[in-house]
């Protein structure tokens, strides 16, 4: 029987050389072994896993490029062809024959001989900028007020009554009165849409806060003496991220739609926004052969709102931690 060699003889090293004593680390033993998790990284991982999101994001980038960069490189004058009777109300094919085939004329020419394509993007710039600003203001005020509203029962009593009152003032009336008082400028429109617009968002946030506020884990946290600001920022806010993102996704396109609606009933702003373009092209809608003038801004507006909506919705889905598994 062969004698088994010990590891010390085989390697020729002593016990001290081969093994080192490991101290017990109280700190390390507290760590839980789990895969590294980064919230925003996971959000984007889930978001880009869907191929359709990449396509929509590319369209979104193209739209943003046309609204913000394209107007910088062109010299657009809506009244350049005002005196030229043959340049008005042209279909794309006619316009291209008349002015040469370039990007300006792919949507034809409008009532004053202007390029519809350029007009649409100038209008889109105003509308989209307005929607972003309004959404930013409404979301910030709405979230702050909504958080306080949800936490404090005293504030809840007062604010619910305020909500009942403001909710019953016809929105169209308020906006048109403001537009009449302050002239229909861009900032008037922003003011009119934000002066009461935040309250609906605040109410929504309030309801969400109330739902999460009384959950057991928050009760436990409160019993352990966690200050309320920490509960709000650490326990509740992460829960609400996906709700907030989804809300932003519905709000931004809805402001564009609302602007279109207000312009259509003649109460919009005086700048050449998308809504006002549609409003002015409404007469062309009734004339056979000119409908294209009406449809092109309508369709571009629809594409913009749809893309914004879908990007937001999918981002909202991706920002829900339950989808990160």
């Amino acid at each position, binding site marked *: 029987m062969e004698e088994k060699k010990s590891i010390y003889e085989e390697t020729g090293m002593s016990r001290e050389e081969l093994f080192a004593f490991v101290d017990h680390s109280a700190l390390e033993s507290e760590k839980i072994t789990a895969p590294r998790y980064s919230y925003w990284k996971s959000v984007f991982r889930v978001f880009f896993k869907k191929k359709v999101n990449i396509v929509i994001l590319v369209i979104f980038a193209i739209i943003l490029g046309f609204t913000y960069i394209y107007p910088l490189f062109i010299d657009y004058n809506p009244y350049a062809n005002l005196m030229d009777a043959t340049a008005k109300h042209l279909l794309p094919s006619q316009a291209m024959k008349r002015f040469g085939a370039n990007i300006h004329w792919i949507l034809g020419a409008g009532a004053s001989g202007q390029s519809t394509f350029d007009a649409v993007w100038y209008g889109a710039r105003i509308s989209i900028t307005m929607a972003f600003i309004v959404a930013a203001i409404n979301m910030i005020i709405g979230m702050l007020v909504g958080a306080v509203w949800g936490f404090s029962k005293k504030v809840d009593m007062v604010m619910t009554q305020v909500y009942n009152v403001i909710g*019953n003032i016809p929105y*169209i*009336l308020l906006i048109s009165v403001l537009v009449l008082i302050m002239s229909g400028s861009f900032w008037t429109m922003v003011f009119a849409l934000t002066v009461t617009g935040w309250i609906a968002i605040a109410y929504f946030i309030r309801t969400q806060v109330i739902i999460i506020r009384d959950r057991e884990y928050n009760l436990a946290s409160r019993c352990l003496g966690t200050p309320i600001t920490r509960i709000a920022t650490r326990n509740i806010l992460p829960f609400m991220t996906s709700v907030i993102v989804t809300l932003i996704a519905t709000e931004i396109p809805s402001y564009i739609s609302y602007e279109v*609606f207000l312009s259509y*009933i003649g109460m919009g702003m005086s700048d050449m926004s998308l809504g006002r373009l*549609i409003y002015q092209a409404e007469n062309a809608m009734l004339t056979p052969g000119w409908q294209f003038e009406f449809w092109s801004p309508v369709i571009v507006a629809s594409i913009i709102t*749809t893309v914004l*909506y879908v990007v937001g*919705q999918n981002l909202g889905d991706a920002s829900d931690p339950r989808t990160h598994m």
Partner: protein
Amino acid sequence: MAKYLTKRIIHSIISIIIVVMIVMILIYSLMDRQLIFKADPTYTNLGNNAKIVYQHRRWEEFGYIDYVPYTEWLAEEARAGRITEEEREKANGFARTAEKDSEFVAEYVKKYTDYYQSKGYTVRRLDAIMSNPRKVANGGAQQLFAYKDKPLIERLVSYFTGFITVDNIHYASGDVGERGIKFTLYDPVYGGKKFSPAIIGNGTLHKYLFYVDGMFPYIHQNLVTINLGKSYSVNQGVDVFETMNASQGSYIMREITYPSGHTEVSADDLHTAKYVEGSREASAVNRDRFVDDYTSVITEKSGFSKVGYSFVIGFISVLLAYLLAVPLGIFMALHKDKLVDKIGTVYIVFISAVPSLAYIFLFKAIGYRMGLPTTFDMEHVTVLMYVLPIVSLALPAIANLMKWLRRYMIDQMNSDYVKFARSGGLSEREIFSRHILKNAAIPIIHGIPAAVLGSIIGAIITERVYVVPGAGNLLTKAINANDNGVIVGLTLFYAVLSVTSIILGDVLMSMIDPRINFTSKAR
């Protein structure tokens, strides 16, 4: 429950009053008064003092100010018997400037000035503007008037106190003979032979306080009238409530016998006769037809009222929406992530994201291709005319309902009680119909009263695009015409509807779901 409801109703009434107050501040205090003259040719044509007087008179008509000219005050004094007719005539002629007034006139002018200044009015005297020393310029005649902004509280109180009027036999100011109310079983409008009960008043505003006729709702009353506010420009002098509820379209011409026995082919509805003092004497036509001063009648027309059209279209589309959206939503939830669900989601995204204007025009274009009428014609109403407006209202409503029903059902599907029911051996069918659907339907049911009552208000874009003579455009029309009375009236009407629908929704929800209890303290 009753206590809770009373509390809710009181809260709602308070918030309605505050809403009306805010709207009054918005339109009477914040808005530029000059705007009402924007498209007024009379105003542009007038000059000098006449322009200023016209301006103030119009402001009074639109409800901004109280305006009392000197001559009107004198006439009122004479009517009240404080001064004689001769004195009135003598005092009436105030001179071109204050210095030139005779002593007698100056005394009255001072009285007038002191009286109105003590009441907080501003008294303005405009000296005559002369084109040459002997001739007054066009519109430059001397003027003397007092005016005062109506204070908000006074405006609010007078609005709400005049909101409901109950007719009484002391209404008519003139000599009407014996005042009283008389009940008859044989309505004189039908010749006094046909059996038809009616209550006829004398001395009241309306001649017929109760009557029966062949039109829905068959029994009518004029005893209690709701006054939402008089229109100044949209439908001049007519109350908003009447504007919304009066029938439209072509006249229903038929042979009618007037109280005097005179017969004529006309559309007058004698049941609506109202008292107008001295009107019989004033016109030969009225003398022919009537025997008393109840001469103001409304003509009968063949179409629905504004609210009627809006409600017919709105109600059918709400009905259609619930009938289609509920099964579709359930179907989508049942086949989550399958093809049906994906198609449904695309449709929901389309409706939620695309501006409503765009898809309504799209529906119109599609309808036009299919040969449906795209505009509403009150003279030749056909069933087909209703199709496109109803579809345009129903399709977005369907998407909205589907979206929420699907969401609620999927949320319920993942809840513990469903897993428990499944582990307990219930069939999928049973779980869906008896457990999930019941719970998911609660928030959907909450919205039913709002949807039905909301259809009274009408839809702005749909009615505009299809030229439906509905109530939807009334507010925008009133705003464009600066018709303050209509704006306030409509706001009140909308606020009452929305508050009622929220309360009704809560009641309905608590009836469906026994867990919801409003009596015990929440949270």
